[in-house]
């Protein structure tokens, strides 16, 4: 814990990541894609509507689109950035040397995780000027904006932790990637389907006027990032979920609790499994 203030792995990883052309190219293409999308959308809307201005409601649609693009970016990039952090060190044969240094396992894991998080945050921040264009046309409050970014950060941290955990547990980067992407797809897509199925079954089994709450349905909706973002962008979604599940509990709290616990557990497992436990025997 003495070295908490300065994390050598974090600084080394940041240095290596920002030095590579791959990172530069990734950022360049992301920003280009954002610009093409935003300016293309504005141009198309203005052309189709035949007016020379952009309405606040259209600005909100653009904001919603951009939020989902950012969510997609986080969901698909975080596993890719973190699922190879430890396993690639193992494959490159740099891990044994790293593990014989005085750094604690927590320092190594947190350094690896934070460097990936920092890169993705940097990517999101770099897109801010383009994203902020929506403010020019109204329809969005700064709170909407901040809330979306806060939850993006929570998702990024959670899926990043899952990636680092699999990277520590699984020797091969490819397998670790598959496991991390599989988990991501389960939490962001399969939970959505399961929610719909649960609600359908609830409706089919419902008899008379007695309505029983569906905690499972509410839980599935709470842990789905897509549902959470929809509830932010359209407050009616939250009411709809509560109406369907008959559970009066804010989705965002369930989301924070679930992903908070997932993050902590994933980091703890990674820290525990990084080094051999020499104290186990005898």
């Amino acid at each position, binding site marked *: 814990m003495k070295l908490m203030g300065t994390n050598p792995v974090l600084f080394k990883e940041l240095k290596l990541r920002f030095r590579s052309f791959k990172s530069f190219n990734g950022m360049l293409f992301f920003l280009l894609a954002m610009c093409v999308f935003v300016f293309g959308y504005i141009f198309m809307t203005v052309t189709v509507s035949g007016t020379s201005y952009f309405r606040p409601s259209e600005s909100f649609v653009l904001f919603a689109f951009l939020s989902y693009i950012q969510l997609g970016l986080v969901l698909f990039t975080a596993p890719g950035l973190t699922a190879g952090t430890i396993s690639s060190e193992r494959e490159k044969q740099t891990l044994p040397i790293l593990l014989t240094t*005085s750094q604690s396992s927590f320092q190594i894991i947190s350094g690896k995780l934070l460097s990936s998080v920092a890169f993705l945050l940097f990517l999101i921040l770099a897109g801010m000027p383009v994203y902020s264009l929506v403010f020019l046309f109204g329809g969005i409050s700064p709170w909407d904006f901040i809330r979306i970014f806060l939850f993006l950060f929570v998702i990024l941290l959670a899926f990043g932790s899952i990636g680092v955990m699999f990277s520590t547990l699984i020797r091969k980067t490819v397998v670790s990637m598959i496991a991390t992407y599989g988990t991501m797809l389960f939490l962001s897509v399969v939970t959505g389907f399961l929610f719909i199925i649960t609600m359908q079954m609830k409706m089919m089994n419902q008899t008379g006027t007695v309505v029983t709450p569906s905690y499972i349905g509410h839980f599935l909706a709470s842990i789905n990032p897509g549902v959470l973002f929809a509830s932010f962008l359209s407050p009616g979604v939250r009411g709809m979920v509560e109406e369907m599940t008959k559970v009066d509990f804010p989705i965002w709290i369930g989301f924070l609790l679930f992903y908070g616990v997932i993050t902590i557990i994933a980091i703890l497992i990674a820290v525990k499994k990084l*080094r051999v436990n020499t104290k186990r025997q005898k």
Partner: protein
Amino acid sequence: MIEIKGLTKKYGSFTALDNLNLTLHEGTVFGFVGANGAGKSTTFLIMSTLLEATSGDVIIDGVNVREKPAAVRRLIGYMPDFFGVYDQLKADEYLDFYGASYGIPVEERRKLIPQLLELVNLTHKRYSYVDLLSRGMKQRLCLARSLIHDPKVLILDEPASGLDPRARVEMRDILKTLKKMGKTILISSHILPELAEMCDEIGVIDNGRLIAHGSVPEIQAKLQGEKVITVKVPIDAVSRALSFFEEQPHVSTIEMLETGDGITFKYLGNEVSQISLLQQAVKKEIPIVSFMEHVTNLEDVFMEITKGAE
């Protein structure tokens, strides 16, 4: 300084290390000799806190590896047999990173890095990317890396493997310098004559068991219980020489040389009786051209000790 007690490592039914016992004093340079898979790297991995032992203990400078692995990491400098480097780092950044990993302050690292690079003759490569260095240079840089926190014990697993002869000589010279600095060094190698030159003690490991341990002359002497002596004589005197030596005590397995100009035999006597044997042969007027004891080098010792083990 180092005490290994009953160290055993099992992978299922396979025993990689079988009750290894070893004691090394401070400043000793210990050479670990053994075939591939004999248990050298397993021992080093356990000592370096990278592998859990099935049973037994390793105590380094009074610290038990099993109980206080973090404290042991400060005491040792480990260089694995195969290692990678971070391709986007320069040599000085590489050392700086590991220096920071040991909690060495920035100012101290700034002073240390040039000194270490000088020690391993890499001053001119200070600002070169590590990935662009040759294999030998990478090995030397890794050695410098293992020294950055001034460890008391150096654990070097095959530090000269894959190096060309020149790079090997350079590595050997660096190790000699480290020996002079008083470091306790454990080194494994297949280049046995090199070990003989720089090691105070040698341990021969085979199938996970330490089958010989001692100084180089001690280990050689163990084998030299039965020396091989070659006596060269003119062709017409071979039969006389053959009948003379056959009758002598301690002589066995006597054979004529393929070239037909001498004989060879195994001899169990000591140096004094060997001198007397030669004197008697001369007295009997056997025209001896040469009387040679076959010198057993470490390679022979290794081959002899481990033969039949497979």
